[in-house]
């Protein structure tokens, strides 16, 4: 069986069965883009008058990837950006676990040599032929997706409580791969340029926080330090103080390397632990007006506060937010690398469910026997094993599609069983 053909046929069946395509608002003002199965070229500057026309196109062309513009244009099908007539753009965030360190990556990521096809675990050069033309093959498992989910939740909290967006202005989309796209549709941000968007981006990722300027923190090099920010403070000051509380609450001799992203001295750690209940009590009383820091050293205090920032910042890809002419995946379409659906979801789904619950399309009870050169040990919710040790693995359909879509190079043969 030709793996690529198998994938194409699956996609074709999906699109012909009237899938749940969620079209963006003002569809006529959006540009669409597609990548088909025949080559890697992006077909751009496409526009559709209605959902029906778009669905018809999807059925006909069966794209491997489908996108639309976060921007609104007078003439979205004009062949170049200048003549499209930019009217504004949604504010979009891309949370992609690829940018977030997780320790499960060792369970599934590897490197593939583009010269000899050899596999290596570390990324500098091919361990077989020594070539440096190697590509990283990354995968996602439930644990990665959970980390992405955590960041999406943090982001939504900031968008609502700090930026004051209402929940119905926020659209949550599972990207079909490694994370979530969060779209904000609000008239006030529509015409915001790149500089303004970068400020919003830096805000959500806590980039550039400087305790010399952030209200509520007075931590001079010389003289007495004082913190008047509290767990009830608004914006970042309160967020930092709440994280600080959590850090102090959970800190112990063994976990401080994980909990603190900045280093502190051993005796400072002991000092904090000895006085833990005092510090917690101080933080629990926001009405007192200031926090008694005892004899905590400036350096240590800053390390704690910076760790607190890292604890609550959102890791988000910068390009998607800043670029006001970008294309983003169409909800309801399939992701050509995973075969999972790009899904618009409710906030409660984000809170309570995993993409494995709602984005797997090829869930039929159909199994494939694959001869694989190498395979990730754990992807999505499935543990892959070469039980007989003969280079063959048996996987359900959705995993087979994911293997083909993401790294067809490793699939040497495939058959239905």
């Amino acid at each position: 069986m030709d793996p690529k053909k198998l994938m194409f046929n699956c996609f074709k069946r999906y699109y012909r069965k009237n899938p749940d395509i969620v079209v963006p608002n003002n569809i006529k003002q959006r540009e669409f883009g597609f990548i088909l199965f025949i080559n890697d070229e992006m077909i751009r500057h496409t526009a559709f008058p209605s959902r029906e026309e778009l669905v018809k196109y999807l059925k006909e062309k069966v794209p491997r990837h489908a996108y639309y513009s976060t921007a609104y244009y007078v003439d979205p099908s004009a062949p170049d950006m200048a003549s499209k007539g930019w009217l504004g753009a949604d504010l979009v965030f891309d949370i992609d676990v690829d940018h977030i360190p997780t320790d499960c990556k060792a369970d599934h990521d590897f490197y593939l040599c583009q010269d000899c096809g050899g596999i290596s675990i570390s990324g500098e050069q091919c361990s077989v032929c020594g070539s440096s033309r190697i590509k990283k093959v990354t995968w996602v498992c439930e644990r990665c997706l959970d980390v992405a989910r955590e960041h999406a939740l943090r982001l939504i909290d900031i968008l609502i409580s700090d930026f004051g967006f209402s929940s119905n202005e926020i659209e949550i989309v599972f990207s079909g791969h490694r994370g979530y796209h969060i779209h904000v549709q609000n008239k006030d941000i529509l015409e915001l340029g790149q500089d303004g968007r970068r400020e919003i981006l830096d805000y959500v990722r806590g980039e550039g926080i400087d305790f010399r300027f952030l209200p509520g923190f007075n931590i001079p090099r010389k003289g007495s330090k004082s913190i008047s920010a509290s767990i009830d403070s608004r914006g970042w000051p309160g967020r930092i103080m709440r994280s600080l509380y959590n850090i102090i609450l959970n800190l112990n001799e063994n976990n401080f390397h994980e909990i603190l992203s900045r280093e502190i001295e051993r005796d400072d750690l002991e000092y904090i632990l000895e006085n833990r209940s005092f510090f917690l009590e101080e933080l629990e009383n926001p009405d007192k007006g200031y926090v008694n820091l005892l004899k905590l050293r400036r350096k240590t205090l800053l390390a704690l506060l910076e760790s607190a920032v890292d604890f609550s910042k959102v890791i988000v890809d910068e390009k998607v937010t800043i670029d006001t002419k970008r294309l983003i995946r169409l909800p309801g379409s399939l992701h050509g690398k995973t075969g999972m659906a790009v899904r618009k979801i409710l906030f409660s789904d984000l809170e309570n469910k995993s993409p494995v619950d709602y984005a797997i399309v090829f869930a039929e009870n159909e199994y494939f026997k694959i001869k694989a050169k190498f395979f990730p040990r754990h992807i999505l919710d499935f543990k892959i094993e070469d039980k007989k040790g003969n280079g063959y693995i048996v996987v359900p359909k959705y995993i087979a599609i994911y293997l083909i879509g993401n790294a067809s190079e490793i699939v040497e043969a495939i058959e239905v069983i």
Partner: protein
Amino acid sequence: MEETVIFTLEDKFKYPFTAQARDHIRKLNFSIDDLALPIGRTVLSLAKKRILDAIRREPFAKAEPKDIDLEIGLLSFPTSIIILAQVSDERLVRVFAIYESKKVRNFLEEENTRKIVYIARNGLGWDIRSGSRKFNLAIRFHYYLTYQPEYLGSWKLVNKVLHDGYVLITRHELIRLIEEFSKRYIIKACNEARISRLPESLSIAIEEISREWASVRAKYELPKILSRVDENEVYPPCIINLLNLVRRGENIPHSGRFALATFMLNIGKSVDEVIDLFRTMPDFDENKTRYQVEHLAGLRGSRIKYSTFKCLNMKSLGLCVKDCKDIKHPLQYFYRKIGRKYGSKKTNV
């Protein structure tokens, strides 16, 4: 309850970009043909004076017209914009816009906070919240982001308290935001102003201003100090971009000036050479610039020689223009190009 603010004719004269002032101007129904009338000639000469004051960087106290009819003074604002639109020199427009908006800032600093809030809210249509007693000011975030004069330090949104869509700001920051608004308002107005025909009196004024501007324009040009090395070969794209902006007389933000100045100092330019670089800036002030550059060079104050930003920070400040491969620091780019190793005498903030 808030007391009502009385917005007088004098206020409209001081803040001609507010809705109230523009409304008043419209109601006066003054057309360019009226410039030929005696009253029009007064308007025209005031308009010319406004521009000349900006070109000559006349101190505000000296520049302020005395004993004039405020309505005539008010009309001189749109008239000067029409003249500038005709002279059509971008740099002159900026010189004028910066001068006028600094003047606005000066006026605002004398006002009570209630008046300033009134101007922002009713004059510009901004969504501002103010506490009744302590004058805690908060501005809806998108106005803040649109007129934010800098993206660094205390101006950076992440260092502000943002809650429920509103950014807490001080009175002084509100003044700066209005200043920035007025500057952009003038630039935009000059770019958009069109007139159907050119009366004799107006073309004489335009000629006069052009002549005056031509004679001083050179002062705003860059002395050719940097032409010895082929800059395009050795400077990173971000620095070249800043240099170009400076040479065109664009008013780059502080972060950009900081990046450019520290870069130049770090590659061994003298304090004077760096000061010369900024001579083309529309708001150039030799003493102030000298003070700042000497500070950066470590000749003053903390005696720390400042390093320039690393690429990561340049990116976050919006100063990076190209993702240079394998480059982490603009200075690294430079040293690579000239073949010296980076890091030998790196000093840091």
